């Protein structure tokens, strides 16, 4: 073997190693990219007041309103063995996540969603774990989760939310609200709702919103803290009872003239009227603390 040839061979080898050095990380990068979440985008033309249903075992679901008369669904299943089905039946769009094989582990049955809907859409969402975020949707909505938290913003429709352990937060919601949980905490912020029914067993409940005339506000838990914030202009008739816990009150209540309260023989109870008593507020706890505090 000549020196020249040897030099050429060594040079060629060096070149090949360089090429390989560039190719291998590139290929690895490509494979890593292809193994990541697969993004699907689907569009459905809809008429007024469409209904969108989502059934997902686990994942992050974000729903926003837009001005288009269509539903856009961007889904990102966690693996290639998980598929998102979206189909339209008239003015209803059904979205669900399913396994493509029996070998998919329960923990891998997840998909994330970004969904845009017309403002007047009605939503029905079932998402066991992860989170659900909805903003600016005017229609009614029903959300059910196990561990997933639910965050709603600027939603004036009739809201029914049920979780097992997931928290619930509602900011500037204005419709009728019915929410229940076992251990989830509730935060109801800047509410303008005339009907609120909230019940959690061990969670805390914070209500910081307006008490509308003729509105009814029923907040109940087993343990934990129920905190209600009021402003001097609010007008409500208050009934607060904690069977084994405390009731702390900063509102100057006067004896009620138009409501019949049957003072319970057990526990700590407080009844009275603030201003004209236009709204009705009922706070009930088993051994939790009830705080009726002035708004900052």
């Amino acid at each position, binding site marked *: 073997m000549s020196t020249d040839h040897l030099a050429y061979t060594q040079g060629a080898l060096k070149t090949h190693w360089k090429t390989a050095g560039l190719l291998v990380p590139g290929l690895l990068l490509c494979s890593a990219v292809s193994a990541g979440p697969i993004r699907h985008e689907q569009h459905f033309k809809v008429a007024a007041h469409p209904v969108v249903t989502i059934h997902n075992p686990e994942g992050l679901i974000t729903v926003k309103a837009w001005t288009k008369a269509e539903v856009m669904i961007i889904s990102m299943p966690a693996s290639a063995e998980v598929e998102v089905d979206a189909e339209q039946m008239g003015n209803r769009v059904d979205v669900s996540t399913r396994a493509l094989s029996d070998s998919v582990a329960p923990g891998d049955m997840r998909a994330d969603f970004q969904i845009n809907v017309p403002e007047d859409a009605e939503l029905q969402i079932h998402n*066991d774990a992860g989170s659900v975020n909805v903003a600016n949707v005017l229609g009614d909505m029903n959300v059910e989760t*196990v*561990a997933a938290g639910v965050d709603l913003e600027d939603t004036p429709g009739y809201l029914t939310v049920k979780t097992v352990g997931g928290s619930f937060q509602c900011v500037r919601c204005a419709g009728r609200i019915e929410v229940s949980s*076992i251990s989830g905490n509730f935060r109801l912020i800047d509410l303008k709702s005339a009907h609120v029914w909230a019940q959690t*067993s061990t969670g805390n409940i914070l209500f910081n919103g307006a008490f509308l005339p003729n509105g009814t506000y029923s907040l109940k838990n*087993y343990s934990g803290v129920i905190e209600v914030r009021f402003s001097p202009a609010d007008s409500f008739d208050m009934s607060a009872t904690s*069977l084994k816990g405390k009731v702390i009150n900063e509102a100057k209540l006067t004896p009620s003239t138009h409501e019949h309260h*049957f003072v*319970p023989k057990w526990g700590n109870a407080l009844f009275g009227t603030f201003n004209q008593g236009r709204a009705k507020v009922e706070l009930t706890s*088993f051994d939790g603390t009830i705080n009726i505090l002035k708004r900052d």
Partner: protein
Amino acid sequence: MAVNNCKDFVTHLEAWTEGERHPDAQVHLRDCAGCRSLAEDMDAIRTEALSWGAQESEPHPRVWTSLRTRLEQEGLIRLPEAEVAIPAARPSTENWLSSFFARIPRPALAGAYLSILIALGFALSGPVSKQTNEARWLEGTQIATSPLSAKLNSFEQNPIASDRDLNPAVTASLQQNLAIVDNYISLCEKSVQEEPQSEVARDYLYEAYQQKAELLAQIGERGENIQ
């Protein structure tokens, strides 16, 4: 008469106590804890009052003795010489009553008798009826909850799906919340034992059972979906 609110119900209360169950009133009671509590109290009072009426109220002989002593002290009656001289020959209640009626003015007798009966009624029947009532409430609650508790416990024993079939985050949350509800049930049961008449404690107990049933149904639903 339509019963749409608490005021209507209070107006309707007399009819309700007499046994008239207007559908509107029943709907209102379902939604209004305050009126429900009032109706329960009224029903309990009525039942108790009826049971008093059904019992023969024969005062104890010592009531007559004390009544007699008091009336003697106040000079309303005076015993014959023979009775004073021979205490061993005390008349029976019946004989004493005959002589008693003969000697004192009837209005005085009636007033005194009535006062003592009322005082005795309150003194004796108060704690007894309280205990009886508590026992009844407790029994009623146990009758309502025992079959439910047994059913839920047997349902809980059945393995529906193995842990590997369920999402770990969901399984953990369901188990954690089932433990919370079980603890909630035992604390409510304890509270009901302590205060059987507390409608708040009973309401919480029933709600706790309802939550457990719903939770087990959710777990069952997931098991079915998997199978």
